[in-house]
């Protein structure tokens, strides 16, 4: 063989050996597919907010970023606690483009976490949510649960990044692909309010309607990632408390001898985060006489993580005799229980569309109402409505049970006139004891079900389940559906699958083609030489002898 052919052969064989060695060192991981949850996308009075895109098809980048990195063609993967909010704010304010953002939410490690850690995570999550929900984000933002796969992925990305070049089509690395359909508007989102009655005992000669006491809780949530908005405390705890109170009073009311002279109305309302839109529509749907028959309403909002202090929020001044009486009943029971109930007065401004507490909607219809909550100050718009940090771990069954005891004892004393009689109606180990298993199982269920109202259809199985449960304890159960306030428009595509591929760069393919080409050429030459002789090989490349020469 000619020397150049030998050199070529030795180089190509050396490269082949190198490739084989490389293969032994790092055999690529297979593609992983993870479920990811998109940031909410919605329009508020025409202004677009939230993440406006859903498809990601970019190379992955990780923090800390190499200097001068251009992120408009990469998707940034960052664990929650490593993501500096100032960085994010800067990107949003300066309208710098990012290919995509994947935020990894820390999974709870149970007892290993201290209260400080949990508080820190909650603080960061609340801030992040506030930032993202109220801004227009032109690139896709996804949340995923942080696990070992992501740890390996981040480590690998760092390794590639530290070799000097940022990931792109020519240098290989990881590619994140989320193929989701274009997000479309949710057409005619509905809010469904569920109500049930426990009719009181109408005695002989009682021609007038019995007065009604209403117990209300809103069951829907709103958060940065609608597919993760389980709202365990806000307001899963309120819903569970309402169901347990309904169960207890249905036992009392099942026997005519213990049926009180009040009707009890239970309402599970929707549209809470949107200025209690649903409650307003629900009240409007009532006959005026029924509405006027409501003596007072107790609204439950976030009662799942308090230990000593509960707050009663009212819109009528505390000196009002009705409010005073109700507050005294609550105080008496709370003193016996060893907790305290404080009263907070917030005047409603009818011209202000912002409704911070549910009882304000009742007050606008001139019905006396109050809200029991562990929060001492009214939440801001779209805050404390079941966000990312509000998971099962942030609620405990004991608080809900305490709330149930407080409300049901005070209610029983009011209905049966047991003031100053020191009777525990719902005593432990009695047939009317509060059932912790019931509370726990419903709290667990609610903490597994994301309940953002526009994504709950009229015939959603969860609404049917609530209706069925309420009809076990009450009668005349009715689901009233209405359209959500026109100010809000929501877009779907809340969940998607992220595929992580390990890709080879274009240069690798070109190099491989080169090696392959040279291998085939060498093989060809080798075979021609061994079977036909060297002359034949040379003859292939020589021009046929020119006719001119022959002729001349």
């Amino acid at each position, binding site marked *: 063989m000619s020397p150049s052919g030998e050199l070529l052969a030795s180089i190509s064989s050396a490269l082949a050996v190198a490739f084989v060695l490389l*293969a032994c060192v790092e055999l690529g991981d297979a593609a992983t597919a993870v479920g990811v949850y998109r940031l909410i996308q919605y329009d508020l009075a025409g202004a677009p907010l939230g993440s406006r895109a859903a498809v990601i098809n970019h190379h992955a980048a990780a923090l800390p970023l190499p200097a001068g990195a251009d992120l408009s063609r990469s998707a940034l993967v960052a664990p929650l606690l490593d993501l500096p909010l100032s960085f994010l704010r800067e990107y949003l304010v300066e309208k710098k483009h990012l290919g995509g953002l994947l935020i990894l939410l820390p999974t709870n490690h149970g007892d290993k976490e201290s209260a400080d850690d949990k508080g820190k995570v909650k603080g960061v999550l609340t801030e992040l949510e506030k930032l993202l929900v109220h801004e227009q984000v032109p690139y896709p933002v996804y949340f995923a649960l942080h696990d070992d796969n992501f740890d390996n992925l981040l480590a690998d990305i760092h390794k590639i990044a530290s070799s000097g070049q940022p990931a792109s089509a020519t240098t290989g690395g990881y590619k994140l692909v989320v193929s989701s359909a274009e997000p479309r508007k949710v057409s005619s989102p509905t809010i469904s309010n569920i109500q049930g009655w426990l009719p009181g005992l109408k005695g002989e000669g009682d021609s007038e309607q019995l007065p009604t006491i209403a117990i209300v809780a809103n069951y829907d949530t709103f958060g940065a990632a609608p597919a993760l908005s389980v709202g365990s405390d806000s307001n899963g705890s309120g819903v569970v408390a309402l169901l347990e109170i309904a169960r207890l009073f249905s036992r009392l009311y099942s026997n005519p001898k213990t049926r009180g002279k009040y009707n009890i109305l239970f309402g599970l309302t929707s549209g809470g985060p949107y200025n209690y839109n649903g409650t307003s529509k629900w009240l409007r749907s009532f006959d005026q006489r029924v509405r006027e028959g409501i003596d007072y309403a107790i609204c439950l909002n976030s009662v799942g993580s308090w230990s000593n202090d509960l707050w009663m929020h009212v819109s009528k001044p505390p000196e009002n005799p009705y409010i005073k009486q109700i507050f005294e009943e609550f105080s008496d029971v709370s003193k016996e229980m060893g907790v305290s109930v404080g009263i907070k007065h917030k005047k409603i401004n009818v011209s202000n569309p912002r409704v911070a507490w549910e009882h304000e909607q009742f007050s606008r219809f001139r019905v006396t109402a109050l809200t029991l909550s562990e929060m001492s100050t009214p939440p801001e718009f779209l805050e404390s409505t079941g966000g990312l940090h509000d998971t099962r771990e942030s609620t405990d069954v004991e608080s809900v049970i305490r709330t149930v005891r407080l409300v049901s004892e005070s209610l029983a004393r009011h209905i049966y006139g047991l003031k100053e009689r020191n009777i525990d109606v719902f005593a432990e180990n009695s047939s009317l004891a509060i059932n912790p298993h019931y509370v726990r199982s419903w709290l667990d269920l609610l903490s597994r079900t994301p309940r953002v109202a526009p994504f709950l259809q009229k015939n959603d199985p969860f609404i049917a389940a609530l209706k069925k449960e309420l009809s076990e304890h009450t009668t005349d159960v009715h689901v009233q559906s209405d359209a959500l306030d026109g100010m809000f428009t929501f877009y779907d595509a809340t969940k998607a699958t992220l595929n992580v*591929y390990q*890709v080879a760069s274009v240069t690798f393919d070109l190099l491989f083609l080169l090696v392959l080409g040279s291998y*085939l050429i060498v093989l060809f030459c080798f*075979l*021609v030489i061994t*079977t036909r002789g060297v002359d034949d090989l040379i003859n292939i490349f020589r021009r046929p002898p020119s006719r001119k020469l022959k002729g001349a």
Partner: protein
Amino acid sequence: MTVFHFLNCAFLTFGPHVVYYSATPLSEYDTIGTSVKAAAVYLGTALVKLVCLATLLKVPENDSFDPYQELMKVFIGFIDVAGLYFALTQLTHRNISQNHKFQAVGLGWAFADSVLHRLAPLWIGARGLEFTWEYIFQGLEANANLVMTLSLAALGSLMWFRKNKPRTLIPIIYACALLLATMPSITSSLVSLPYYLLGQTYSNIAAT
């Protein structure tokens, strides 16, 4: 870019066959008909082997090395040899020398093997985004398989065509042929034999 990778791996897998055909005198004597017939015989052999494997072998419950199953696989491997015998001797070929006949048959056999075993995984897998070394390994395996088939065909032609073989070489020829025929079984058992032996030693230690 990933179609690029597919094309690369396809060239690696099927290129050598084409190169072999065009480089050697096979193309001059236009032996493509022989190769096609050999490919058809390979198809038949493969089907027979599959049926035998399905009937005779049991599904392994655990990953242990079962010598009886391996022996069974060796016997079924001989069907390969029978097929090659059929292709070399029984089919009518055009007037081509023994030399070229075995090459053409071997080439056709190896090409059919590559296409049947490797084309489908290549088409489905190599076009995806994810990069693995698997298809490059498959291509290298196809190359090795070509060499092995050609040598098996050569040994076959030596065994069945040459009537006046030198006496000393006969056992060597037959031994080599046996080795080549059982090569797939040997490679797979080489992989699993250490685990089998390890298992045996552990059970012996535990028993004592």
